[in-house]
């Protein structure tokens, strides 16, 4: 089987979650330059929740993302710059501005059951001359056949590829294989995989997807991304080279990019701590992690309890406001329990 694939590095988009959306223009220039030199063909740059994501709910950006996109475009000699856009959070206007700033790939993301809200944005990407990618988030929550139905909708709107997105890092290798395999048999367009590392399976799941014929793979350099982090690009490339899978990316330059350009941004990246593991175990959206930690501190409750309650409530990506709701409720419960103790 031909296992050639196209790599998209999302350090400067998914990694935005890990730095609370505080990327600076200098960091973006340095990272894009290093990735571009290593041969990475697509580099994604946006607020973690996509263009237009800067907000109370998801965190305000340090630097206007359009300036970051422009800087990335300037630094990239060969790589195309991509943006993420989540309908309901960003708008068509954000996509227009990104195109104007020089972005060439529009990745339109919806919760895995809600593909039909992407129609107008996929169409707009085409009108703007951008390559469009459908991005089905939290894909572990539904069965492969259901996921394929949603993927077909995105294909029918004109998406050039559709991604299986493991936003919670909850997929085992079998989960990833079945979803990618089913999509490959169901759609005519390309299929991609976006893996998170909560169960320490991001590289393994990407390789399993390659065995199923996946056409595109996402990574984040050093794994810098939401939750426990993503599929570390430099590790993926090294593993592919050893497995005889052509990547078009220079493994040694990729290691340099990781160590010198990205590692300094967040030296501790790569540790799967209890909260990170819990997200994957309970199937909770990875971007909730830092918000949950902050709410735990602000309202004096336990991060673990917040994450478990969010999992039980089946909240989806975008519902960061529910973290405050859950934290307040836990605070109330704790106060009520104290009162009971005092009364007895």
């Amino acid at each position, binding site marked *: 089987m031909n296992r050639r694939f196209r790599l998209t590095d999302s350090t400067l988009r998914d990694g935005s979650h890990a730095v609370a959306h505080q990327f600076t223009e200098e960091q973006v220039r340095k990272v894009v330059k290093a990735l571009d030199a290593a041969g990475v063909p697509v580099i994604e740059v946006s607020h973690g929740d996509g263009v237009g994501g800067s907000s109370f*709910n998801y965190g305000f950006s340090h630097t206007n993302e359009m300036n970051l996109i422009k800087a990335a475009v300037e630094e990239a000699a060969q790589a195309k710059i991509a943006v993420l856009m989540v309908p309901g959070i960003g708008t068509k206007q954000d996509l227009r501005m990104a195109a104007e700033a020089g972005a060439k790939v529009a990745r339109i993301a919806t*919760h895995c059951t809600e593909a039909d*809200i992407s129609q107008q944005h996929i169409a707009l990407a085409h009108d703007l001359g951008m390559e469009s990618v459908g991005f089905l988030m939290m894909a572990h929550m539904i069965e492969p056949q259901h996921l394929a139905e949603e993927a077909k909708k995105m294909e029918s709107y004109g998406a050039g590829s559709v991604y299986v997105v493991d936003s919670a890092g909850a997929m085992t290798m079998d989960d990833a294989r079945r979803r990618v395999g089913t999509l490959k048999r169901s759609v005519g367009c390309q299929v991609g995989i976006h893996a998170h590392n909560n169960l320490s399976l991001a590289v393994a799941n990407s390789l399993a997807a390659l065995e199923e014929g996946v056409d595109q793979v996402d990574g984040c350099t050093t794994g810098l991304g939401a939750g426990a982090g993503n599929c570390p690009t430099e590790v993926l490339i090294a593993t592919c080279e050893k497995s005889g899978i052509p990547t078009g990316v220079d493994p040694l330059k990729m290691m340099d990019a990781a160590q010198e350009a990205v590692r300094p941004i967040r030296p501790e990246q790569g540790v799967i701590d209890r909260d990170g593991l819990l997200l994957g175990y309970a199937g909770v959206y990875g971007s909730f992690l830092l918000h949950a930690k902050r709410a735990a501190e602000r309202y004096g409750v336990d991060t673990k309890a917040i994450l478990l309650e969010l999992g039980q409530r089946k909240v989806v990506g975008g519902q960061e406001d529910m973290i*405050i709701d859950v934290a307040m409720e836990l605070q109330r419960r704790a106060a009520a329990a104290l009162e009971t103790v005092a009364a007895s």
Partner: protein
Amino acid sequence: MTLEDKKMAKITCAVVGSGNIGTDLMYKLLRSPHLELTAMIGVDPASDGLRRARAAGIDATHEGVDWLLERVDRFSLIFEATSAWVHRQNAPRYQEVGLTAVDLTPAKLGPLVVPSVNLDEHLGAPNVNLITCGGQATAPIVHAVARVSEVPYAEIVSTVASVSAGPGTRQNIDEFTKTTSSALVEVGGARSGKAIMVLNPAEPPILMRNTVFCALGDGYDRDEVAQSVLDMVSEVSQYVPGYRLKNEPVFDEDVFQTPGGEVKARVVALLEVEGAGDYFPPYAGNLDIMTASAVRVGEAMAKSRML
């Protein structure tokens, strides 16, 4: 006043659009002491809404707005529950024959109205617009904060059950966020605004949730802001009984770099809307708040015209 007098005093109205919203609205209008629903107008002979209208003893037709315009004398007020595109076609025809329209689509032709905020300002308008479900649920809270404090920036997140968002909403999610954002400024009184919409497919379906974040200017009074929000919630709940706060308003002091400038505090209101269950199940508070607001607006128009 005798019963007969009361009936005489009612304003006659018609619902155009026999889909989910129109049908839910029908049940609410049938209970109104000030509005008399005399016709339900659709385009699909097989519509469940038209069948239910007939069962309730109301004239029901699938012949569309032409049927209505041949009988103009029978109506004073039209509730439009079609789509933005259809309303743009119909609105000039209503105006030509002097029919007032309460628009439940996001066409945004007339002034934006939220009953608990600016109802009295637009009672004489030939066409008023009810924004979106998210706008009806959140603009009152922004207004409640803005009447006692400076609000450089307001942001709302509306989450609705997937099954309660029809194809119109799904294909036009951008119109939802744009129209709602403008209501936070135009009706709510914030200097700038952002709206976010999320669909949640959980089973059983979730109740509609709304979270309102208001950036607070310096010198705000915590108790005053909280009281103003509580007062507003009780006002809205008079016409949307399932509208409630999940928690006391939450104040966070921190430095926030908002699009309206840097602020040192924000207030967060977490709201839930449970529907009355007239045609939709109670989880669809998003649809209920639209139809309940429409009745409130129609009744106020009726009362003002009887004076």
